[in-house]
């Protein structure tokens, strides 16, 4: 009895965890109008109709592309800039290095919401409302990414970089041919986090994208309900939203879970 209790509990908790996802998918595939549970559970009547309806009706496809652009461009640029800065903070002596690094760290204490208004006014003043650069560029200033990079690079032995420099390689070449290959694991980890941060981001896209065409998928999903859309279509939209998260999670779960356990990174 006692030996069975553990697996039974595990399975029960697992069922509770999965249920919301399961009902989302069931309702998304249920025939329109089959929103009550018995109707939704009838798998033989499953249909793609809600997906085609929601993709055809609202700008869902456009929102998905916006989200993809927001996430992927941010991943590439943050990985580039943060690894460059992290390398400099870890391995280069320059005046003001410590002070700057502490300034980067100190801003981690300030919640984004606390500076939302001046942040918005600044970007709006630069003409960034309803533009892609206005959405993306301000979010590239990511202290946490710099911190993670610096912590990883600082423990790599200096000789690795010195050897390349002795061979006459330029600083940029040392970065591209020595630093980048060495930090591949942390690039993967950070890439996953940055992707999820941006894909799931809500407040910033909500305030900076004011036209319907500039919404991201999360913002669009939140506004779908107010419009003339059935719950089946909302759930179809929700299912579309969750697919990239599942893909990223399925492929790179190890990087994600390991780094949370060791460094307390928060997605």
């Amino acid at each position, binding site marked *: 009895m006692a030996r069975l209790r553990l697996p039974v509990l595990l399975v029960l*908790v697992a069922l509770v965890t999965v249920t919301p996802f399961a*009902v989302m998918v069931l309702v998304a595939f249920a025939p329109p109008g089959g929103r009550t549970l018995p109707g939704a559970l009838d798998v033989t009547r499953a249909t793609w109709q809600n997906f085609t309806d929601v993709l055809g009706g609202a700008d869902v496809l456009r929102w998905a592309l916006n989200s993809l652009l927001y996430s992927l461009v941010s991943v590439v640029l943050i990985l580039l800039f943060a690894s460059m800065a992290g390398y400099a903070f870890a391995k*280069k002596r320059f005046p003001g290095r410590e002070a*700057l690094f502490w300034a980067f760290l100190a801003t981690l*204490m300030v919640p984004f919401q*606390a500076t939302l208004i001046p942040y918005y006014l600044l970007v709006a003043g630069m003409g960034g409302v309803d533009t892609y650069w206005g959405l993306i560029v301000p979010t590239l200033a990511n202290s946490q990414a710099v911190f993670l990079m610096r912590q990883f690079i600082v423990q790599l032995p200096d000789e690795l970089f010195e050897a390349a420099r002795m061979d006459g390689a330029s600083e940029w070449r040392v970065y591209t041919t020595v630093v980048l290959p060495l930090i591949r694991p942390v690039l993967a980890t950070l890439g996953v986090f940055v992707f999820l941060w941006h894909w799931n981001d809500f407040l910033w896209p909500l305030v900076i994208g004011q036209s319907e065409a500039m919404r991201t998928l999360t913002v669009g*999903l939140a506004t779908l309900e107010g419009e003339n859309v059935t719950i089946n279509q909302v*759930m179809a939209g929700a299912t579309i939203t969750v697919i990239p998260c*599942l893909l990223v999670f399925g492929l790179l779960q190890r990087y994600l879970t390991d780094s949370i356990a060791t460094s307390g990174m928060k997605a």
Partner: protein
Amino acid sequence: MSRVESRETPPEEEPEARGPADHQGPGPGGADSPASPVAVAAPPGDRTIPPVTVPAPPVATTAPAPPPAGRSRWGRMSAARRREALAGLAFVAPMLVLFLVFRIGPTLGAVFLSLTDYRLNGDWTFIGAGNYARLLDDRLFWEAFGVTALYTVLYVPMTVVLALGTAVLLHRTLWLRGFFRGLFFLPYVTSIVLAAVIWKWIYEVEDGLLNSVLGGLGLGPVDFLGSESLVLPSIAAASAWKGFGYSMLILLAGLQSVPREVTEAAVIDGANGWQRFRWVTLPLLRPVLFFVLVIEAIGAFQVFDAMYVMTAGGPVRASYSLVYFLYDSGFKFFDFGYACAVGLVLFLVVLVFSLIQRRLVGREVD
């Protein structure tokens, strides 16, 4: 294009490469341009400056004219040190510019604006602590603060108990541990908006999942999100489902770092499972538990998305959080200075949480 090409480039290209930077002098200001992506993509015809070497700050200068301000500091450095310093600044430059403009700028801006009555029309006067005095008298603000505090008190225990429970389950089992860990972690990688949309339907009165189940048992229906007393626990439960995976991983790592000899010794002493957990594991887990509690409390105090999607702050502001109040002050009433003051209150609360955690964990270590 010419990453391969440049491999053959002899080190002698440096004198030429020095050219463009000389205009700027070896000051920090001139250091950022070489590292920009534009410089990397030099035109193919440009023979003298191979693209890949351009970002190297060309600093082995013999007789440059350094900016007067930095004369002594830069002058005292050896050529190699100066070269290293410039390289460092060049590599930090892109992130530094972004950081100064989009992190430091808004942070200082928030402090400054909170001392003004800046509004949409652009006029402003310095009013000192006026906004803060107004906050003290604003019933709406205190309501929102109360809602946020209550939400935090509901959300944090739910999440941490769920996280600790699942972490202990996972720790004790070897059977499909990786599978279950991934499964429990799944909600965490999705967005809070998604969780809110799904749970809004689960909570629905008409034919939501919960009320269907309750109806089957002859109970209900219960208007989870329409009731002033149930709305916060309901939102907290949905958020806990979404969020517990993070704390679970941290606590699991904490459990796995408890030395096996310690628990084995307790087994030999005849302690049962609960006693081992209560008197051996839990005390050792305390620093990790504090960390998780504080991180979750900080997150809970910033709650907004879930309420925006599920209830729009209702019913009758029963789920109108502090950030919601900030959002409305700024983007509905365009009372920017006032909204910044709310932001600073939020920052102070987060700071206090962090300090408490440092105090408690610090004492633990001593």
